[in-house]
């Protein structure tokens, strides 16, 4: 019980919070990228080029951050082995 109370609780809590954080961050960033792309398309069709470009750029940034988070997570796992 003592052994569990010290190191293992910390390790397990690390797994818990990191997996919840990763799930939410990746999902939210991807949802942001999808919404940005849809908005950009709608604005382009209504001839609002400036806003469309801003949404498209935000979408690309969100997508890049999402992919970066995934790659970072996999690298972290591989480095811990």
């Amino acid at each position, binding site marked *: 019980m003592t052994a569990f109370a010290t190191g293992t609780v910390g390790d397990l809590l690390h*797994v818990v919070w990191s*997996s919840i954080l990763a*799930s939410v961050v990746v*999902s939210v960033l*991807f949802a942001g*990228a*999808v919404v940005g792309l849809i908005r950009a398309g*709608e604005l382009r069709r209504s001839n609002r080029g400036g806003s469309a470009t801003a949404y498209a750029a935000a979408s690309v940034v969100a997508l890049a951050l999402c992919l970066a988070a995934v790659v970072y997570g996999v690298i972290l796992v*591989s480095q811990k082995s």
Partner: protein
Amino acid sequence: MSVDIILVIVVATALAFDFTNGFHDTANVVATSISTRAIGPRRAIAIASALNFVGAFVSLKVADTVGKGFVDTHAVTSTVVYAGLIGAITWNLMTWYVGLPSSSSHALIGGLVGSVIAAKGWSAASGSGILDKLVIPAVVAPLVAFGAAWLAVSVVYRIVRSVRPGGVSRGFKLGQVVSGGLLALSHGTNDAQKTMGLITLALVASGKLSAARFHVPTWVVIAAATAISLGTFTGGWRIIKTMGTKIISMDPAQGFVAQTAGAAVILAASSGGYPLSTTHVISGGITGAGAGKRLSAVRWGVAGEIVTAWVLTLPCAAAVAAVVYAILRLFGPGDAGPIVLTVVLVIGLIAVFLRARGARGHGPVPTAVDPSLGTTQG
């Protein structure tokens, strides 16, 4: 020389177990992508198979835990590992036959623990290791996947509610190609490792490796990765034929979130060296994504199956492995026991296979399975 024969049998049996693990779990990894039509079955299975292989190389911490976290490595012999494997396989076949839910991963570790206790007594098993690294994570991980998916899908729906649903669906279908791949990769980081740990333990027991410097040899990594990858590929073709009616009903956003949550939990657990039932985690993610949209859409029977598997698998697989070890002891300390038992098992499996083929020729063929709810789970 006699030990080498047992070692060869142990390695072959462990790789066969790994193959069946991949075979069973293909459905869990690809079902969500296929059900939302994010990707075609053939392509999904090919990608899952390849990424399962790659995932086996990403982390070896779970293999370390299986190899030295649950039992005293000095108490293990090749016969103990063999009895553990046969105990796990027998338990999986028994539960499959009577339709009880089980977990291949827990059966494997339960089998190892049961056979080492039968061989050397209770002191040879690490109670704290089993509790800390297996039992508590087994309960926590599916709940975390459920909570993460529920939270993520709730936030995602708020973000996308103001735009066209058609565009959202198309976007998340594309995302599922990546999230499905990530899930397959994470599956390789956890499930393939269990076989690696067991084979390495057998190598240590037979004196081929030093217990002081426990490490997984490269050939073991390649062999286990290949076995699970081939199992995934082979299992997939069967699922293409049978998948159809009882598939999970979810939209692409839910599918993306369920896969992302499942992959995140499995990857985080792999980095901590926790061997999980990947099926339970994926089921937790799918259930959480369903609950995030509509609570009544959740199939709570899945949760009941997981709880049953938690309670039954570990002690029952341990008991079966202890009986197998006792039977092997009747043949003496040499390799006669494992050889006789392997021959009997192979003959039995061929008989079951031929009988199943005969029955198929005379009766109706079962045409639909629920890929998310295989009774033997990884």
